[in-house]
């Protein structure tokens, strides 16, 4: 494209017009659009994507299902093969125990078959646990029999 003074002028007019339209839109808008921030559970669903190579909410895969996790004794899903160490850990899964375990799975339960370094970031861990807790309470995700 050849740039001439005329071309620049046309661009300038277009730019001024765009700004004017933008200002008009702002001035004419009765209410600013509300900004909706994702909840911890919504953020946690994104973190849970990391778990889905081995886990699912509603059925056993390489790892056990996560529906029913909250309040469950570690190593107790029927017919799932756990390490002896996990079965003997005595852990009941709740927010605190999940936070400890997910920070350092092999440190908290040496011998666990979950070969995963953990979720180091405290905020991400909190979001992940919020997602797990919310999913466990959601009949759409974790209904009866799951």
């Amino acid at each position, binding site marked *: 494209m050849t740039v001439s003074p005329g071309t620049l002028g046309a661009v300038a007019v277009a730019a001024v017009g765009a700004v004017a339209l933008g200002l008009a839109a702002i001035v004419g808008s009765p209410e600013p659009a509300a900004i909706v921030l994702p909840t911890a559970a919504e953020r946690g669903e994104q973190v849970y994507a*990391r778990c*889905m*190579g*081995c886990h699912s909410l509603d059925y*056993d895969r390489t790892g056990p299902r996560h529906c029913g996790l909250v309040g469950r004794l570690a190593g107790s899903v029927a017919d799932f093969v756990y390490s002896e160490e996990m079965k003997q850990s005595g852990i009941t899964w709740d927010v605190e125990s999940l936070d400890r375990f997910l920070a350092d799975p092999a440190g908290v339960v040496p011998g666990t078959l979950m070969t995963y*370094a953990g979720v180091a970031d405290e905020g991400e861990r909190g979001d992940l646990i919020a997602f797990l807790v919310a999913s466990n309470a959601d009949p759409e995700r974790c209904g009866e029999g799951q």
Partner: protein
Amino acid sequence: MAAYQLGAESGLLTPGVRALAITFQGHHKEHIDALAAAVRTLGGEPSQAKAEYIFPVSKLKAERDVLEFAASLERGAMSAYAGAIPLFQDSALAAAAASILADESMHWAVLRGALGQDPVPGALFS
């Protein structure tokens, strides 16, 4: 392996996507062989595949469902390797796992592309 078999046999995939599924399944077979060889080199015995795998078959009603399911597995596999490699003390095993991680990442990107999504939606994935 089993998930791509399910997809390939679902009857839901168009020929191009079905060919992709079979290609990716071949990669996963190579991953199994590489990991089994690494475990044997370390003096271990590789675990066998499960007799049966459970998949959310009732939720797979269209090609897009299969692609989304496969993408979620590849995304998860990527993280599984990223989370496992720091625990490996043997550098040959870590190298094999890192190579597989690279494949899983490519699979995920291609599947996202097939879904019309940004193939690489960020950086520094874990």
